[in-house]
């Protein structure tokens, strides 16, 4: 195992995998709606972290091209900027989905008086 260079990129791949697994576990097994929604927020956070770690360059620089830089050196050393642009939108999508789900959960609480999924969503009369 030690021959693989254990650097930041590999560690953050494992972290994003851990986020997704914990999020999936919570979304499936927890009975409280708000906790299910927190689990879902963790799944989206894990996916975003995965995208950002794709572009990481060990020992590289932040992909901002300062005037004095040589373009070839910049291209070789800077982190890949495309995933950063993608994650910007996907973080916002995660937040908006979470907001809509919480709003629905509030309405369902007002109607059913409980937060437990089995009572609300379980058996439709």
């Amino acid at each position: 195992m030690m021959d693989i260079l254990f650097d930041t990129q590999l560690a953050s791949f494992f972290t994003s995998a851990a986020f997704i697994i914990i999020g999936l576990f919570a979304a499936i097994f927890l009975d409280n709606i708000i906790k299910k929604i927190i689990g879902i927020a963790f799944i989206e956070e894990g996916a975003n972290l995965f995208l950002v770690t794709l572009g990481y360059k060990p020992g590289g620089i932040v992909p901002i091209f300062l005037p004095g830089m040589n373009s070839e050196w910049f291209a070789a050393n800077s982190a890949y900027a495309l995933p950063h642009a993608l994650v910007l939108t996907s973080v916002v999508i995660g937040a908006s989905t979470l907001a809509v789900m919480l709003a629905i959960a509030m309405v369902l609480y007002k109607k059913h008086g409980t937060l437990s999924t089995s009572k609300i969503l379980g058996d439709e009369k």
Partner: protein
Amino acid sequence: MGLYDMIVNSFKEVRKKVVKDSATNESVSSALAAELTLISTLLIAAIMLRHFNITLTVVVILGLGLLLTTNMPLIPKIKREQDDSLEKMVFYAILTLGILITVIYWGQTNV
């Protein structure tokens, strides 16, 4: 609680159960049609395995035919498995995801 009350309660139980899914002849005929389609289409779909190898197809068809005919009233089971409860849906979603990823990953390493 007297014997009489117990009998009345049991009638109430039965009536409540019958009212829930009262089987009119229309629902029975459609359930029969659904059952026939399910068994016949699954068996015909199983024939498509002949592209891999013939013996596997024969085994699968016999096994599937036996399986389907033994627990014959399939439709109540199918209906219960696919009602609207979230746990069942999430269970089948994660099951499909698991099967999909393992088969594809295993397929790559061995094929």
